[in-house]
């Protein structure tokens, strides 16, 4: 009843190249920059909008505000020295970089991380996924003016950061998963304290269900908005919850299990509508999966065992010529590290495949035309993208 119906008839027809021929001189159109500093932007990027009235005619994404040239930096560092910088490729879910990098190095060096480390890595990745979803659930409410969800989720995320802190020694950049294994064991009493956090999280998530998912304003503004046609999934490289919200039950944790996922019990959450609401519900269900997985892992993981495999002296670690691609399911879809080695002590090339690269740029540009200005923020957040991981 409140939903926005774009009226395309008032705009010029696209030219032969498919692009709109917009003449700003007519005064009918306006350029509007959303970002790079804007609460409704998923981090440091911006969208250059062309609007007509409150309808968006065109949106161009601009990235590059963060560029730190990580992939190049990695080529100048020894294999151990790459380890501390990979986490910085993605601030909100850094651990995936640590895992993929470590696993890629291990693959080419012919090393296998011990069982304990495999469990620990899985635990860390689920904790990281949980936190990443906290940012999403807070962000999507915030993008629609529901500021309280952001505060709640930040609080819960902080509690999980406490667990990260006591386990890894750091809150944001954990630097805990390193080639060969992990840096340590669970602290005494960790399971109990983690259970408290999960408990609190569940209570707050129930509140989120009431305040957000059962909220008629939220529903109205997200249902049927920002629909991604599943036919676009392939050509646009859409993976993860964005695809699962469109009925594609793909999840690398199930489809090509890594670490100890084949020993864990879980379902892949899906939805059918492929709109903002569907994407939010899939993630809501995924948080619960992560919570369950964390509980399972803590119950099933070995209590002792070496945390590290025997690795060569890292000061002159050379890795034979080779290439490998290691991938996993992060909170946003397929995350991967492509590593090429040439027999020296330095990586020849590292390429990071982050899902945000496709979702936040090409896909977003495709989805924007025809939306209402006020929906752009929610649309962007619903794709759950992190610019740092676009600009490696």
């Amino acid at each position, binding site marked *: 009843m409140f939903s926005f119906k774009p009226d395309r008839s008032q705009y010029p027809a696209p030219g032969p190249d498919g692009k709109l021929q917009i003449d700003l001189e007519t005064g009918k159109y306006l350029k509007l920059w959303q970002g790079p500093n804007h609460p409704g932007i998923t981090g440091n990027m911006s969208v250059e909008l062309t609007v007509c009235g409150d309808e968006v005619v065109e949106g161009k994404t601009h990235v590059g505000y963060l560029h730190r040239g990580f992939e190049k930096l990695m080529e100048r*560092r*020894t294999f*151990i*020295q*790459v*380890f*501390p*910088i990979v986490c910085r490729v993605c601030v909100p879910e850094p651990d995936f970089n640590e895992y993929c990098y470590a696993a890629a190095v291990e693959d080419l060096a012919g090393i296998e991380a011990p069982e304990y480390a495999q469990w620990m890595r899985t635990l860390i990745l689920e904790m990281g996924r949980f936190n990443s979803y906290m940012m999403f659930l807070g962000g999507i409410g915030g993008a629609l003016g529901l500021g*309280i969800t952001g*505060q*709640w989720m*930040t*609080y819960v995320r*902080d509690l999980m950061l*406490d667990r990260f*802190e*006591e*386990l*890894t*020694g*750091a809150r944001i*950049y954990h*630097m805990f998963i390193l080639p*060969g294994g992990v*840096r*340590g*064991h669970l*602290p005494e009493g960790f399971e109990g304290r983690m259970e408290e956090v999960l408990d609190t999280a569940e209570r707050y998530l129930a*509140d989120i269900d*009431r*305040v*957000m998912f*059962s*909220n*008629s*304003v939220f*529903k*109205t503004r997200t249902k049927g908005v920002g629909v991604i046609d599943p036919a676009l999934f392939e050509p646009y490289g859409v993976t993860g919850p964005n695809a699962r919200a469109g009925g594609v039950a793909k999840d690398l944790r199930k489809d090509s299990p890594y670490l100890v996922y084949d020993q864990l019990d879980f379902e892949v959450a899906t939805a059918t509508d492929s709109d903002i609401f569907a994407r939010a519900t899939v993630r809501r269900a995924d948080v619960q999966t992560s919570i369950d997985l964390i509980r399972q892992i803590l119950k099933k993981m070995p209590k002792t065992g070496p*945390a*590290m495999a*025997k*690795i*060569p*002296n*890292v*000061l*002159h670690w050379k890795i034979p010529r080779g290439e490998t691609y290691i991938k996993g399911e992060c909170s946003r879809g397929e995350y991967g590290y492509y590593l090429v080695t040439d027999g020296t002590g330095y990586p020849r090339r590292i390429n990071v495949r982050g899902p945000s690269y496709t979702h936040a740029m090409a896909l977003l540009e495709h989805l924007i035309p025809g939306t209402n200005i006020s929906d752009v923020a929610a649309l962007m957040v619903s794709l759950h993208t992190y610019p740092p991981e676009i600009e490696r």
Partner: protein
Amino acid sequence: MGLREVLTPFTVWKHVFDDPVTIKQPIGRPAAERYRGFHQNDLDTCIGCGTCEAICQNGAIDMVAVAGYDPEKGNSGLKPQIDYGRCCWCALCVDVCMTGSLTMSNEYTWVDTDPDAFRFVPGLEEPWKDDEEGYEREGKRVLSGIERIHMEEMEPEARIGNFDEIVAGYSRAEAILEADRCVECGLCVATCPAHMSIPDYIAAVRDQDYDRGLQLLYETNPFSEVCGRVCTHKCEGSCAALHEGDPIAIRWLKRHIIDEVPFDRRIELIGQPAEPTGRKVAIIGAGPAGLTAAFDLARAGHGVVVYEALAHAGGMMRYGIPEYRLPYDALDRDIGVIEAMGVEIRTNCRVGRDVTMDELRRDHDAVVLTIGLHMGRSTRVPGTEGAGVEKAVDLLRRITDGEKVPLAEQIVVIGGGNVAMDIARSMARLQKAEFGKVGITLTALEDIDHFLADPEEVVESREEGVKIFDARGPQEVMRDAEGKVTGLRTWRVKSIFDAEGRFAPAYDQSDERVHAGSMVIEAIGQAADTSLLGAALTEALEWNRGRIKIDTAFRTSEPWLFAAGDAVKGPDVISAVADGHRVARTVMEKLAAREVAQ
């Protein structure tokens, strides 16, 4: 849309009385125990190896000198200084630290108005320097190898009946693994008397570049094949790796390089000596000191003649060290390279008997004295005069010469150093061959915890059947009515040195023992035989407590005469090599100065 959907959001208000979630700063609660706060360093444990500096990907660490911490064996005296404008708190420096001295506090914040405060030497004065909590790595270091790669060795039963070499040497794969453990800190270089470029030649092993490795060895040591087997390896005693594990097998890696390079290739790699200068130097004694000096002088183009009293060159390397530790052909290869540089060695030519000092002085531009210590010392306790009591060095020399040496079924050795072990184990082998069993008793003044011999010598000699009695002082060699040796009477040692540190053993006479045996061997030290000098020169030279006095450049008080090696300094092959280099440099400086003067 039902009414419920409109109303439920209002349930948020129930949180209005919750404690505030966002607080101004995390102060007020301590950080987790493992939190990576600010660096701490136990400066008394830190050895200044700089491994932390090497690993830091941010270049945040500089090794700096700190007042009150001086360099010493196995410790550079430098300490890491950290720049928090660069650090990313990865704590790799903590994980890689060779001693575990580097840790972190679990402090959250550090506020200072002086930006330079954030470039600091942890462990000096920061308030958290003694904090208990904070990040330290779990267990021992894992970023570099802790355990030494084992080298194959002959089993005791297999080795006791012969003089075959005991250790096998590393295979290439083993050597690479052992070389991998080195962190290239260079602490060992300072300790090595010859300052061999250890981390560099170890790197050559890792790189499988044996040519480069060999050239590096020859830059500082023409006796690398010998030292690769029998060096006293003091370097390993200062290796950074020993703090949480085994020191790097520096000696075995040196040997491995030599093993990998064929003899002819060695000469090729070292290259030809310089053009002849026409200068002539005489060297007395073909031990490591004399031959090293000869090598250097010959490479510089000087004519060198080495006069050697015995039938073969090598000095104590041949006539002291037993063959099972140093096979003669290994020694011959080292000497062969030196001869290939044009050095002439005149064996069976004893100076003082076959040629005089005056003649040497007359015919050469300089004379270098490297005669070693070849006269065995005696305890002079009652009963040592007469048959049945021998000196270790005499027996070892005769064994090398292939002579049949006196033997008994039960032998008592006096002495607890390596020479005592060498004679005990050599005699054990002869006993095994002659009588089918070993009967050796070894008595030493020192208690077993303070033994002078290397620990592995103690272990191996025991494996071979040598019975060790520690803290026993010899009182008398017992003889029967016919004068035949029947054993050694000893008292227990209470202390070896007096309050002033002088050698003055004190005994517990109530604890007396007689060690039965029909032969006693004294292995308590050697002295130089300086009779070759003749009365006039002996009179003219300055002496220092029975030894010819030398200055730091190895000059004696006679301008034409230089001296080096065991005879004036000692105590081992690598020191003799180092001294050989030094004395050669002094001689060359003298020759060059004469050049200018003429």
